[in-house]
């Protein structure tokens, strides 16, 4: 590839339209896939409903809450995955708490929208349990984790529910970082379009038509970018797609620019991890296992140790309610029927997961978390 060409045709706050040239299709497609599914953002993951006398069932509301876009700018650095965090059950570094409390006393129906969600400090004192001054927090913008529409004048908030006189909706949510492979609510993109070969010169598709192909398949705006094939032009079976028209539109949780740059960085991380993965084998063939560990960085040899050795981690993982009094208070409610896991079944409980905790603890050493040293316990 002799140098890709990027041309941005339109850039708005939450969308970017660009043409990518001189790359192969696999590359362009990987970029498309990575911006859709591999960029972390924040979304409500657990909903604890205190009162719900609305017409909608709890699950319904919990699901809708999960879909609300929250401002996630710089979230790959400014927040940790809960599974990577050293806290037992959520701390300000890996969780954001939101509250919603609306009661209708008027004679008319009220809209409950995402603007009613308030970011609140954590449920228990949140004494910043970590000693390592959480650098993550410093990287956050002022409205990090707030619903997107809230701080934008003229923006339409997300309607969650309508309530009439005498009805109430009161709940607490925990928002976490995740990626869209886990649940689509974590995708920063609301739409990604991808087009190549607007004239269908490569015949990657067949146009079905009744009478006249040209009339029934009008050309899109991207067709102006490329020369139409001549009537008598023979089919070039060696031709490869070379010019890709993409538009990335975000849900507002991040800027389009950030999504693209993060996507490219994520691609590099994936490739780098593959190189690292293949290198130890080469080193072993050369007889140097130590080098292999070295290639993994300083934590190469030690990453099993913390969770194996530290009983504290195991203990906190298995008994978070005991170690965190405030959660203990909410415990009964929590274990009872009033609590609804949000849209992701994978995160049903913090409490009953000693194995889950350990598994995640170990798992974080893999890809996806380039700065695992920041967890504090790798050293």
């Amino acid at each position, binding site marked *: 590839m002799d140098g890709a060409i990027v041309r941005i045709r339109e850039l708005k706050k939450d969308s970017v339209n660009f043409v990518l040239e001189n790359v192969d299709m696999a590359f362009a497609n990987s970029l498309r896939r990575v911006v859709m599914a591999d960029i972390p953002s924040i979304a409500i993951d657990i909903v604890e409903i205190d009162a719900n006398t609305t017409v909608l069932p709890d699950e319904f509301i919990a699901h809708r809450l999960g879909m609300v876009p929250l401002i996630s700018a710089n979230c790959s650095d400014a927040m940790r995955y809960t599974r990577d965090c050293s806290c037992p059950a959520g701390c300000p570094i890996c969780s954001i708490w939101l509250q919603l409390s609306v009661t209708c006393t008027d004679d008319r129906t009220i809209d409950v929208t995402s603007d009613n969600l308030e970011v609140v400090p954590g449920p228990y004192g949140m004494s910043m349990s970590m000693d390592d001054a959480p650098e993550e927090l410093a990287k956050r913008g002022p409205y990090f984790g707030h619903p997107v529409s809230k701080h934008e004048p003229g923006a339409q908030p997300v309607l969650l529910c309508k309530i009439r006189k005498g009805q109430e909706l009161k709940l607490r949510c925990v928002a976490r970082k995740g990626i869209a492979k886990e649940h689509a609510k974590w995708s920063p993109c609301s739409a990604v379009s991808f087009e190549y070969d607007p004239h269908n010169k490569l015949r990657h598709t067949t146009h079905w038509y009744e009478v006249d192909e040209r009339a029934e398949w009008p050309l899109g705006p991207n067709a102006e970018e490329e020369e139409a094939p001549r009537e008598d032009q023979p089919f070039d079976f060696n031709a490869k797609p070379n010019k890709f028209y993409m538009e990335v539109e975000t849900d507002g949780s991040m800027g389009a620019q950030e999504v693209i*740059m993060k996507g490219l960085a994520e691609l590099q991380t994936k490739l780098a991890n593959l*190189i690292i993965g293949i290198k130890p084998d080469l080193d072993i063939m050369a007889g140097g296992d130590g080098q292999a560990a070295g290639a993994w960085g300083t934590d190469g040899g030690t990453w099993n140790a913390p969770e194996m050795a530290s009983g504290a981690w195991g203990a906190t993982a298995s008994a978070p309610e005991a170690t965190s009094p405030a959660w203990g208070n909410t415990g009964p409610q929590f274990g009872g029927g009033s609590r609804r896991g949000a849209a992701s079944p994978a995160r049903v409980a913090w409490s009953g997961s000693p194995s889950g905790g350990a598994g995640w603890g170990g*798992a974080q050493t893999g890809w996806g978390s380039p700065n695992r040293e920041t967890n504090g316990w790798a050293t």
Partner: protein
Amino acid sequence: MNAINRHELFVLEDGENPVEVTEDTKIPNAATIRIAKQDHTLGNMVRAQLLSMPSVLFAGYKVPHPLQPYFIIKVQTDGTITPQIALETACNDLIKMVGDVEGKFKREFAFKDADGAAGSNATGAAAGGDDPYGSGGGWSEGKDYLDF
């Protein structure tokens, strides 16, 4: 209930090998490489890059089962390099290419930012989004993944 945890689709398990190389016993200079917790995003890109290398005779990848989060890639070279080195070279080339595209995007965004600041500010905050997004994004730190 029986579903696996979703994060198992992309987070390496404890002690799981991210990359396993099995050399082919019958075909010379060929290997099958199993890459865990990755999918078409990486597989197809790497395969395409391998095919563009003159010393690679064959490269193909597949995701054997959609519910199992790994893919395998088969590489056969002409003998001048081993399949592992071919793969490594392909990845390095791709990293360079992504870096190139990244730089071009950065430049384009900078141009557009300058335009936006001058003209199309009517849509509210400028394209950089300094208003609700705070620090605007830390991508510009210039991370070097080759340092891994």
